[in-house]
């Protein structure tokens, strides 16, 4: 039930302004932590700006979707939706400089596979990657807990795909004026795919996105579904509710349509800059990270020893 879900309670934001505010705060927090004695000009040259972070995030969202669509075995759409939602949620409160999106991206997909009951063992999962697969597997598994923690362990994602099917069934049953609803399906799915790359899933409920997609698809076939929405879906709604819903539908359409893909050149320039300013503690290739992992392992080894000695003390006393 979406209405009582954590998605509704914690992960819906009022709009892009609020999202931008949170992202800027994450960016600022990172810079404050690592600027040391740099002047403002040096900071601007060394660290990423919030706008640059957005470019990088969007670029990796495209990469993520491409990775998912080429994934073997073929994954259901809801896994793509869920992994993109995880990715977006993660970078609302975290900076791309702190955690590199290329690691988080793969972890998101891996976690989404589990959440959507499409479990792929890690060995099979990394077969879809080129390069040192063992290293990838280690990185994914080491970031998995971090990712879940940053998502507050709220891992249920309501995707717009099932609501869309629900509206299609409802259209066929309760709106006989529309003769062949299946012909709009192609456009509807196109719209949903585009919506995945925008921030729509952080602002609107999945049913709103789905209804907007249906409306958009019908408009492409030059059919107006205003009659259906007003007299069937919102028949018993109060005036205020109906007005709000219609307003939200318009906003969904505006946000999804206004999405612009980033160019490769832009992204590459940002990525170069990132290589210097990223947090080395979260870079699986860096020396600091390896040292930290070893320390952690040793610390874990120490704990039982401490416990045992404590126990023997208790026994002795």
């Amino acid at each position, binding site marked *: *039930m*979406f*209405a*009582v879900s954590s998605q*509704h*309670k*914690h*992960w*819906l*934001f*009022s*709009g892009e302004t*609020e999202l931008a505010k*949170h992202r800027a*705060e*994450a960016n600022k927090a990172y810079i404050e932590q690592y600027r040391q004695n740099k002047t403002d000009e040096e900071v601007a040259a060394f660290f990423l700006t919030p706008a640059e972070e957005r470019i990088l995030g969007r670029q990796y969202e495209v990469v993520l979707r491409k990775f998912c669509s080429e994934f073997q075995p073929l994954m259901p759409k809801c896994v793509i939706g869920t992994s993109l939602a995880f990715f977006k949620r993660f970078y609302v*409160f975290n900076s791309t400089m702190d955690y590199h999106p290329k690691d988080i991206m793969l972890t998101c997909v891996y976690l989404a596979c589990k959440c959507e009951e499409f479990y792929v063992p890690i060995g099979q999962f990394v077969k879809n990657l080129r390069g040192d697969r063992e290293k990838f597997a280690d990185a994914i598994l080491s970031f998995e807990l*971090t990712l879940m*923690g*940053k998502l*507050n*362990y709220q891992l249920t994602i*309501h995707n717009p795909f*099932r*609501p*869309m*099917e*629900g*509206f299609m*069934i*409802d259209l*066929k*049953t*309760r709106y006989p004026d529309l003769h062949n609803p299946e012909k709009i399906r192609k456009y509807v799915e196109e719209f949903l795919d585009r919506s995945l790359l925008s921030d729509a899933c952080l*602002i*609107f*409920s*999945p*049913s*709103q996105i*789905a*209804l907007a997609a249906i409306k958009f698809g019908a408009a492409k076939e030059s059919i107006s579904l205003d009659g259906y929405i007003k007299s069937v*879906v*919102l*028949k*018993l*709604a109060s005036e205020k*509710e109906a007005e*709000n*819903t219609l*307003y*939200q539908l318009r906003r969904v359409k505006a946000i999804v349509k206004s999405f612009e893909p980033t160019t490769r050149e832009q992204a590459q320039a940002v990525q170069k800059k990132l290589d210097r300013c990223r947090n080395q503690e979260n870079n699986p290739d860096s020396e600091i990270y390896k040292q930290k992992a070893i320390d952690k392992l040793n610390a874990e080894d120490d704990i039982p020893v401490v416990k045992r000695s404590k126990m023997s003390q208790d026994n002795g006393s």
Partner: protein
Amino acid sequence: MDEQGCPRCKTTKYRNPSLKLLVNVCGHSLCESCVDLLFVKGSGVCPECNTSLRRTNFRLQLFEDPFVEKEIDIRRKVLRECFIQTIYHNYYFHFLAVYNLSNHIDVDETKRMIEQYKKENRDQIKKNQSKMSRDEEMLESLIEQEQQESYMRKTMLKQNEQREKAAKRKHKDDLIDDLMFSELSAQAIISSHRESAKQEEEELKAKSAATTFSTGIKIGHQKNVVPMTRTEQGVLFRYFPLVLEWCGPEPPSMDDIYSDGYLKNIRPASDAERAGGFREAIACHRALQEAFSGLFSYPTISPSPVKQPALAASASH
């Protein structure tokens, strides 16, 4: 460990747990079904060593190694033929015979040796054969003793029961007699009778206590059954229908789905799915619920929490 199996049909204990291996005098094992097949006529040859065998001589293989079986067989035969009760008579001769026969060394020579021995000691052997071995005698006496004991126990139980029944009947008769002829009030008579009955019961109990084993198990059946402890009954369960929060228009109910013809517009469930308890209406219901729930979500109605960053930060530590 290699599997124990029939050498002819290659069935193993692992594949057929009820496999019965039989062995004949030649010491080669065969499974039950192979024996049935090969020895239809009652006699035949061993498929391994071509010794002619009789079906009646097959017996269950007790040891994993068929050689052991064979040896035991020979040992028994030699023992039966000449050494009953004279086993210490000619120790060396006995073992030599067994060893030679079971390892195919000088078979004819050994057989001749046995024959000769038989002839020499004919009288002795005959005498011994008519006697039963001391061991067997002892076993038999043990079994007999046991049988006697169990019979005694049974009769004792029966007697006890009869005695009890007779006592009860007597009590009843006494009571009726007293009621008929005594001057006392009925109440007093009944209460006095009850008391005396109780007393007798207690006496009986004390008697039966003597027949308790040291382990606490009592001989004979027990009269006093432990009463079932009555569990305390809590507050009765009251059913409250589930109230669902939609944050949107009310979706069609399950009844609507059946009555309004929604089912025409979705794929009917296959027979296999129906067998598993799935109905297409379930999927339809879920899709519709998800389509309508959350439609009214609006940022001013449900403002996204500002405390989110703090929450995320606290969860990560």
